[in-house]
């Protein structure tokens, strides 16, 4: 079997459908739960012991303590899609969220501009809001 055939066969056989869950370490669960629920506005699915589970468009976010010292590190940067990056930025600012830098144009893709704004969650993790803005409807500059 050549490498290409092997690759195609492998992908089919493993059959990863998507990402079901992402873990985020929280040092203060009530604080983190309040942030993800009340500031980010994500639906709280349930809590189980010292863990809280949120839904974000079909992907579950699991907030909880590190189960081993090795795992006690910041989260991967998650890029949350929003329809209007400037309005969402203002929403976070009004709630006292630490913003890394004002919304900026990250990349000009063929048919749209990719805007992002970085912020910190209650646990100090860097996260991003992202918005794909079609060329025909540019956002007004909020700067």
């Amino acid at each position, binding site marked *: 079997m050549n*490498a290409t055939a*092997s*690759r195609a066969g*492998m*992908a*089919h*056989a*493993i*059959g*990863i*459908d*998507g*990402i*079901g*869950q*992402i*873990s*985020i370490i929280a040092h203060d669960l009530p604080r983190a739960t309040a942030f993800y629920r009340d500031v*980010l*506005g*994500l639906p709280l699915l349930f809590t*189980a012991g010292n863990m809280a589970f949120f839904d*974000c*468009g*079909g*992907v579950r976010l699991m907030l909880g303590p590190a189960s081993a010292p090795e*795992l006690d*590190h*910041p*989260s*991967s*940067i*998650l*890029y*949350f*899609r*929003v*329809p*209007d990056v400037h*309005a*969402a930025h*203002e*929403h976070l600012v009004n709630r006292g969220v630490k913003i890394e830098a004002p919304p900026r144009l990250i990349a000009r893709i063929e048919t749209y501009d990719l805007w992002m704004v970085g912020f910190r969650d209650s646990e100090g993790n*860097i996260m*991003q*809001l*992202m918005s794909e803005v079609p060329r025909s409807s540019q956002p007004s500059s909020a700067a």
Partner: protein
Amino acid sequence: MNSQESTALARIGQIAINAHDVDRATAFYRDVLGLRHLFRAGQLSFFDCGGVRLMLDKPEKPEFDHPSSILYFQVGDIRAARERLKAAGAKFEDEPHVIAEMPGYNLWMTFFRDSEGNLLALMSEVARPS
């Protein structure tokens, strides 16, 4: 669009994963995990995973140089997926096991490492006859 709609975090568009060797990591995510490689832009390598983009990236600053969050990849048959991944060279930490009994299904998981040492997991929701 009202204020709530315009600020809603609808879904996750992208996840950054640290890779110290982007070529090595690209080979792992493409050839071992079997994810669809979208494109490469310098030290960035992008994959699609069920509509979520994974961005492999060399950490720019010491502050960013830490392992990835655990990403839990959904599969239909966790035992078969584990065997395939193991045969392809992924290092597993445990055997597939039931991690939670949820209403209507059992949640199975098994943990492994990517080429960069990040801890990842396979997960599978197996319906439980009522």
